[in-house]
Structures are given as C-alpha cells and as structure tokens.
C-alpha cells in the first residue's frame, strides 16, 4: 500500500485525522531535512513525536505500520551481545529474517563471535526504522491537491500552525536565541496564508531553499522585519 494511504488509514484508525497533514509534513521533513544525505536515513519515533506531539508510542506504531505496508520504510532489530547486555552485537532488517526463532548475527561488534537470537526469548533487542531517502520523498511528495487539503486542515487549529512553524524553523540555520523570535514572525505569516503553499511544497528542499523562500516572503510582506533582518545578516 502507498505511504500516503497507509498514513491516512493509520490516522483514521487512531482518531487523529486532523494530524494527518502534520504527520505527512513531519515524515517528509525527517527524511529530507538531514545534514547527512545518505541513501538510507534513520527515522526515530522520538523525532516524529517531537514535531507532531502524537507521543513516542503512537509514532512507533505509525512507523511500524508504514514498514509493514511498504518496503520503502524498513524496520530493523538491534541485538545485544549475550556476553554484555548493553553493547550492540549487530543489527538486521526485518525483511532479511527467515526464522524469528533463529536470527543469526554473524559477527558480533563486541566479541566478534556469531550469535543466534530468538525473538521470543531475547528481550533486550531494540527496534528502529530507516527509509530509502529519495524514493520515500518521491512517494510522499506533496501535490497541489495535498497542499490545498492540508492548508484547510492546518487552519482549523492554531496548534497546527505552531507545529508547522517548528518544522520550518528546524530547517533553518539560526542561532538558538533567535529561533523563538523568527518563529513568532513565521506564525504571523503562516496565519496570513499568502505563499504558504510554496513553503510547504519545498519542505523537502535544503536549508538554502527554505531560507530563500522565507527571506523572499519577508521581503514581500510588511511588518515582518525581524525575519527579514535575520536573513539579511546571514553571510
């Protein structure tokens, strides 16, 4: 099943339909907005929760659901060395496991031996998720229709505007003490809606694109001098 459809179904099942758009943008932002542009990126429930506020547990369930329904998001297990319950022995993608009662880690990172794990008996493993960056961005890409739909939902709740502002701020290279001030200006702007669709459409762009867009917006509008000054002062 497609990621958008799975996300929609998940939100519906968990009665968080109004967060569908925020989670969509959060996922896109997590996958795209990393300084380390590797082929596969790690997606953490903690980060999803940080931007959406759905709670780490529900964020984990969401990623689990996405990985069950689509191969672009992979669930993986991290196992611990039996000789030391804290040190990582190795990790393996869920789709590479043939037998959950005999999972082989051929070369333990700690003791360099081979270990076998049984998912029912070994309770010390951790679960993580990773996404194929380019393909996932492509599949989650926001269409004009998505943006129109999401803008309508976003405007029904001031908290959503705040979350979107946080996501956009996270993409900008700002000094920590200036972030709150820029965020206030941005929220004012997001409420005004003009050019909002452009900002959201570029959510997967790099910091320079976002900075450029926001700077342009600041120049276009009167009353947002604080944002304008920050970007004008950038080297």
């Amino acid at each position, binding site marked *: 099943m497609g990621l958008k459809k799975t996300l929609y179904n998940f939100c519906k099942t968990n009665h968080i339909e109004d967060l569908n758009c925020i989670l969509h943008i959060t996922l896109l932002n997590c996958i795209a907005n990393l300084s*380390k*542009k*590797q*082929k*596969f990126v*790690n997606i953490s429930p903690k980060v999803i929760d940080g931007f959406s506020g759905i709670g780490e547990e529900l964020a984990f369930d969401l990623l689990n659901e996405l990985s069950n329904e689509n191969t672009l998001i*992979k669930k*993986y297990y*991290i196992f611990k060395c*039996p000789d030391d319950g804290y040190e*990582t022995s190795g*990790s*393996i*993608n869920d789709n590479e496991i043939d037998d959950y*009662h005999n999972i082989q880690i*051929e*070369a333990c*990172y700690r003791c*360099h*031996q*081979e*270990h*076998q794990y*049984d998912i029912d*008996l070994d309770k010390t493993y951790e679960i*993580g998720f*990773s996404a194929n960056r380019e393909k996932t961005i492509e599949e989650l890409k926001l269409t004009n229709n998505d943006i129109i739909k999401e803008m309508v939902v976003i405007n029904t709740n001031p908290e959503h505007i705040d979350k979107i502002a946080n996501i956009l701020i996270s993409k900008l290279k700002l000094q920590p003490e200036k972030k709150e001030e820029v965020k206030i200006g941005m929220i004012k702007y997001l409420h005004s809606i003009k050019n909002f669709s452009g900002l959201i459409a570029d959510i997967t762009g790099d910091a320079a694109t976002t900075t450029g867009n926001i700077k342009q917006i600041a120049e276009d509008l009167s009353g947002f001098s604080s944002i304008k000054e920050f970007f004008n002062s950038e080297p």
Partner: protein
Amino acid sequence: MYKTEISKRLNKADYTRLPRLLELQGTFDNITSIEDSKKMLQIADINGSKYMEIYKLKEDVDISNIIQELNALSYHPNLPYIEGQGALTITKVYFHQSDFEILADFYTFDEVWIKSDDGRNQTLTPLHQRRVLHIKYNHNRQKLILTIDPIGDGVKISEDILRYIPEIFNQYNIIFFEYFELATIDNAIYTMIDNEVLRPTRLKSTDEGSNRVYDTLAQNPNDSLTDEVTFTDTRQNTLNINRMRLKHDELNISVELFSDDLLKVWSRANMEQNDGLKENIIQLL
C-alpha cells in the same frame, strides 16, 4: 564427521546444494561415500568466513622455479583431530602451467560460543578447531590470494600468516618472499566504497597525536559512515585505522579492513560470494 565439518563452514542453503553442484548422486543428507564427502569438504574448506591477503608477483622472477619444485598431491584433509597431530599439514597441491594452488590445515584450541539444547543460553566452551589455509596463484593476473580461517581477532593473524607461509614453502625449498610481496588493498576498498559496492558500518581509528580512539557504529543496518569526519580522516591517514566493518550489499556479506593489507570476510560466504569479492578487489589492484 566430514558433514559436520562442512556444516560448520557454510550456511545450510549452500552446503545442501553441493551435491548438485558437484554432480553427485543423492542429497547432502544421504551421501555416504567418503570420496564424495571429501569433494564437498574441499569446497567448504576454501569458502566461508576467512581472513584474506593478496600478494603480487615480484618483477624479474621466474614463476616456473616454484612450479617445478611442487609435488602434486590429491586432497586428503586431516580429519578427525588426533591428540598431538594438529600441526600444519599440506592437504592438497595442484598446479597447471604457471598457476598453482595449495591447501593446508591445522588445529587450534579455542573457546567458542555453544548454544544450550533448549536454545536459552550460550556458553564459551573450549574446543579443538580445524583451520584451513588456502593459497591460489593466478599467473594471468600475477596475483596470489591467501585465505585463512579466522583465529582470534584482528591484525595478529598477519603474524601467524608470516609463520605459516615458510612452514608450507620450506617443504619445497622455496623462499616465498623472494617471489611475492604483500599488496596493499586499502585503495581498492575505498574505490569500492566510492562506487557504492561497499558500505562502511563501523569504523574504529586512532589519533596517534592525542592517543584518542574514535569508534563509530551505525546501528541502522542500512546506514553508511561515509559522511563521518573520522571516515575522511582515516582515508586521508590523518587517523590510523584499527578496523573498518563494511557491508557488500550486492553479495550480502560483511567484510572488515584491519590495516592497508588485511581483510576479513565475516560472513560464511558461499562460492559465488567469495569469488565475487575477490574479483571485485583484484580488478582494482
């Protein structure tokens, strides 16, 4: 006895297809002929998890001097272990024109993880372990590939190899290092990383100036450490490599570079995986 040894070396999916590969009658489980079992063990001996070094033929040496000293020997593994008879033994010698191949085995006494019958616990148990050393020279490429079963961990195996090589070649009055020199393979490995053939997943390096050790581990099995500063510094020799674990995604095996000339194949690599990796490296040397 032979089947147990084979199953230690290869994954089940690989050793059970050996009879078909060798055109033997019957399946792996119902083969009873010792000769057929030996044929299968010979393949298992040269595959699986290995340390690997590659040697280059020196200039202005005549390889025929080595070939004429060798005596052909058909494969006869030293199995089972008999107390006091675990020293290095040459188990096969083969040569054709200017190519040659030598197999040898010996026993070590090590502690290995053994799973309890109910599968709930693993304990370290001392056992005599059969080890195989394989040497194969290809004159077209003028490269000799030496592989040896893992003994311990890390670069110490290089010292062991330096001891084993004379033990083998002295028997034929050949001074090995007059003909061959160890090839550095780190540049070939970095080229394979650039070409996305290999993906670094763990890197441990030392800054000799500050004596700090940097150890970075990618817990996400799909991650790559190529964007780490320590990776760049190690590649540029600003940091000294201790070990770099790498994943070969196409062959689905893990390997580890310990220095500029010693590689370990961690996975119980089958025939295709082993040959594929060697071919990848040799092409770039």
